[in-house]
């Protein structure tokens, strides 16, 4: 579908129309993601979530957005004015740019980039500038702690994220997201590269500051972190960026690992089916992220760093090495998949074994479930 070229023969008009469509879609999705998150987490917590605005609370996001627009835009006296005011834009723009490179259906995104995957990383890495600016410019110590934490965290987790995806890109032989999706006609890459998928999900949780890696925005410690001083529309820009990034990463993950618009029957049933596939898969990933948030507590900064540098990076490089060996010797994909599944099981098993290696609590009655003694 080429709107501009079809109607007027102008490619720039085509690009603008596509951008408008994607931006509108993104706005709707973000508004309903906040609603969805509140509803889903309310289910986990035996609450109802929003019910009052519109049927089943469906207009809650609209009401929130209107309220935020009307609120006063407060700037602290000792904030650095321009740094403070530009930070939300610099957080938001990279996320928006990323959406321009994601394929929603066959050959349909704002632009098909031959180096799509590379572009996504390069641009999302800029996100950190806005966060750091917000942390430094707010003139608030909680914000400073949050900004510095975010910087350390995002820089660290970028590495396993990139390496894990690089392993998939090696198999695909391309960085073009459309080509990667098209390649998954018979099987999504998650079946071949489950370990890469696990690393990807972990690193994405960290990149998005979602639980259990929500250290830069830790509510119970630094009360919101780098955006603690923002209010009204600027605060909502941060929220918009957060949820847009969540969505962008989910589509990205769906395209690279879950078969994107291709698997199953993507080519047979037409563009509407491809669009549904992309959206449903991304929403499933988002649901998983909400689920994690409702369940897991938060890690500590040093534990987060050591998990990245001592576990994730090593495992992702090992994965890269294994994939390289398989490609070099041209072994069958089945063997590669088996090795990968074994790797993923070993990785998750190691985490689980660490969890059950707990202090001796057999004299504690409350711990009967774990100690194997019957309750009183």
């Amino acid at each position, binding site marked *: 579908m080429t709107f501009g070229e079809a109607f007027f023969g102008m490619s720039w008009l085509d690009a603008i129309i596509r951008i408008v469509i994607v931006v509108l879609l993104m706005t709707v999705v973000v508004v309903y993601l906040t609603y969805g998150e509140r509803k889903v987490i309310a289910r986990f917590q*035996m*609450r109802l979530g929003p019910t009052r605005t519109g049927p089943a609370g469906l207009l809650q996001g609209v009401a929130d957005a209107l309220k935020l627009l009307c609120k006063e835009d407060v700037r602290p006296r000792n904030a650095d004015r321009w740094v403070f005011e530009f930070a939300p834009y610099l957080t938001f723009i990279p996320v928006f740019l990323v959406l321009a490179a994601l394929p929603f259906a066959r050959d349909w995104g704002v632009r098909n980039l031959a180096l799509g995957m590379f572009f996504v990383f390069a641009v999302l890495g800029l996100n950190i500038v806005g966060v750091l600016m917000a942390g430094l410019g707010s003139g608030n110590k909680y914000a400073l702690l949050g900004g510095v934490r975010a910087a350390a965290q995002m820089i660290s987790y970028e590495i396993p994220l990139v390496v894990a995806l690089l392993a998939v890109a090696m198999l695909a032989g391309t960085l073009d997201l459309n080509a990667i999706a098209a390649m998954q006609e018979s099987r999504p890459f998650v079946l071949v590269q489950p370990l890469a998928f696990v690393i990807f999900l972990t690193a994405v949780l960290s990149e998005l500051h979602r639980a259990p890696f929500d250290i830069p925005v830790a509510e119970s410690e630094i009360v919101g972190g780098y955006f603690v001083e923002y209010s009204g529309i600027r605060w909502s820009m941060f929220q918009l960026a957060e949820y847009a990034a969540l969505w962008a990463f989910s589509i990205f993950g769906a395209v690279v690992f879950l078969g994107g618009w291709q698997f199953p029957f993507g080519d047979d049933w037409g563009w509407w089916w491809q669009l549904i596939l992309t959206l449903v898969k991304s929403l499933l990933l988002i649901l998983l992220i909400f689920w994690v*948030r409702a369940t897991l*507590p938060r890690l500590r900064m040093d534990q987060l760093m050591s998990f990245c540098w001592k576990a994730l990076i090593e495992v992702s490089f090992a994965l890269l090495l294994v994939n390289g060996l398989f490609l070099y010797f041209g072994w069958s994909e089945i063997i590669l998949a088996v090795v990968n599944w074994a790797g993923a099981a070993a990785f998750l098993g190691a985490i689980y074994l660490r969890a059950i290696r707990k202090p001796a609590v057999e004299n504690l009655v*409350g711990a009967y479930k774990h100690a194997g003694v019957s309750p*009183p």
Partner: protein
Amino acid sequence: MAIWPEERTAAAGDLDTVDMTVNVGPQHPATHGVFRMVLTVDGERVVGCEPYIGYLHRGLEKLTENADYRQAMGWWDRTDYLAGMCCEGAYVMAVERLAGIEAPERAEYIRALMMELSRINSHFMFLGAFGADVGSFGTSFTYAWRERERIYDLFEEVAGDRMFPTYFRIGGVTMDLPANFERRCREVLASIRQGLEDLDGLLTGNEVFVERCRGLTPVTPEWAIARGVTGPMLRATGLAWDIRKAEPYGVYPKLDFDIPTGRQGDVFDRFHVRLAECYQSARMVEQCLEAMPGGRVLAPKLPKTLRINEGELYFPTEGTKGEYGVYLMARGGTQPYRAKLRSPSFCNLSALRELVVGTYVADAIVILGSLDIVLGEVDK
């Protein structure tokens, strides 16, 4: 860019880092009320901690000294407001012992039952809030709140009020239990056990939770005793010290229960001891239900005006946070000459600075949570 000029000038001209003071509270989601602490941090590492208290000071002791023995009871509810029954129980029993009044046995059983339900209530508050301190997004909180609501409902049915029932009287309790109490109480107990299992499953086996709490600030019994630390925090160090066993009062000698203890006194043990204590309290409530005799609930022939001649007494009870001791001195008349509360939260809180210094900022919040303070009791 003039952020924090006083600290910037300290580092002027070189690349040395300076410590930064971070104010936590009194309006902060993790301070459980109106507690304030000023942390001095070197990056993420806490190098100093200055607690400030008193935001909730209401002059409990002076108010008690200026009120009739019976009027003062309502104030004591409001010290440990998460377990009002335990507090009023302590005060009422202290006055009874000072005045030489005997409560009927049925009243004593009702009191023990209510106090144990209160203890569960307070511990649930801890379990939920502690999960939130460690960073779980409110799920533990709502799990705990469900059970607390049920306990409060039961209190309302019995006493007519939820948080501050003022149900006990000097010489017994206000009124008898409602007719369907036993059935309702067993329903609530079943729900409590379910809630405990839910919380156990959500937190105890969680890798992230264990990673955060295990081995964080382990302390020895000697260390804890030297600082006046009592209650679950002391028991977490491995010392089975429980006033209900050590200096029994009420019907506790007749009840069969264990004292859960930890091993190393770290944050994880403190959490786990409280979880285990809830099971013990549920056991005690069941025993009370079974053993409860019939008869009066208020002693007959109580004096119209309660006058206590010369006398002095310190009456320790096992509050939900530790040793909740009531000191009363009478010199005749209808009012105590001196009233004093030995509040466990206050004493436990005094150990905070030593525990917090040297840990990370995130740990400081968790350690504060593991002390399980309630500000009504700290500030009196």
